[in-house]
């Protein structure tokens, strides 16, 4: 016969285990507001609990050299590093640096493409965050002829 107290204790242990593996659904669903408010690459990495980002040639960022319309800038981020947990796309000079964060599983390649708004010419970063919290990045300058923010 299990008492209520024991049941509670056990479920707390299970919840703790789930949280430590990063599988806890509640935690996964929480929107990373702090990271989306951060202004720089270092701040974003810190908000996500990752280490100081290091430049790496195993991470690739793609985009045009010159974007005519800052409202729609096609950007890609990919990495060949095995075990990447998250792939981020950042635009340094936007009001908030982080554009998008992709959570990678074993079933998808760490290779994503999307379109972003850019307020002005800026460096664009692709960041790969590994399972152990190490962060690697690549950067590229994109010149914008017509800004996509404000208006």
């Amino acid at each position, binding site marked *: 016969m299990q008492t209520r107290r024991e049941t509670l204790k056990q479920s707390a242990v299970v919840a703790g285990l789930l949280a430590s593996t990063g599988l806890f659904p509640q935690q996964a669903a929480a929107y990373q507001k702090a990271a989306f408010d951060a202004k720089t690459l270092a701040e974003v990495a810190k908000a996500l609990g990752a280490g100081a980002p290091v430049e790496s040639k195993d991470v690739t960022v793609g985009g045009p050299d010159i974007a005519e319309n800052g409202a729609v800038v096609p950007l890609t981020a990919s990495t060949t590093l095995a075990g990447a947990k998250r792939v981020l796309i950042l635009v340094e000079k936007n009001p908030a640096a982080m*554009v998008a964060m992709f959570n990678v599983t074993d079933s*998808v*390649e760490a290779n994503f493409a999307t*379109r972003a708004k850019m307020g002005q010419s800026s460096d664009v970063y692709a960041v790969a965050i590994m399972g152990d919290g190490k962060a690697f990045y690549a950067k590229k300058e994109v010149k914008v002829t017509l800004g996509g923010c404000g208006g």
Partner: protein
Amino acid sequence: MADPMRIRAQAAGDKATVRVLMSHEMESGQRKDSAGKTIPAWFIQEVTASHNGKVVMTAEWGPAVSKNPFLQFVVKGAKAGDKISVSWKDNKGDSRTDEATVS
């Protein structure tokens, strides 16, 4: 209710490239209307993709993703006939799910 997404999933070898075009305003919260008042932010925050019912990717977006967002990703082990479903949720709590078959 928002307009449907356009999803295209094409198999090549043992993986499939999925391209999604969502229909969403993606208001950044930075713009002002003609009266000088800031237009409140309205954007997709969470995106989830599933392959035959199993979640393969989740993403979190900020307001800097373009209007009518485009997303491309590659699902490993997907073959023709498999189902790919994509859903999103915006910061006003609106959501939408659409499904496509890998070709």
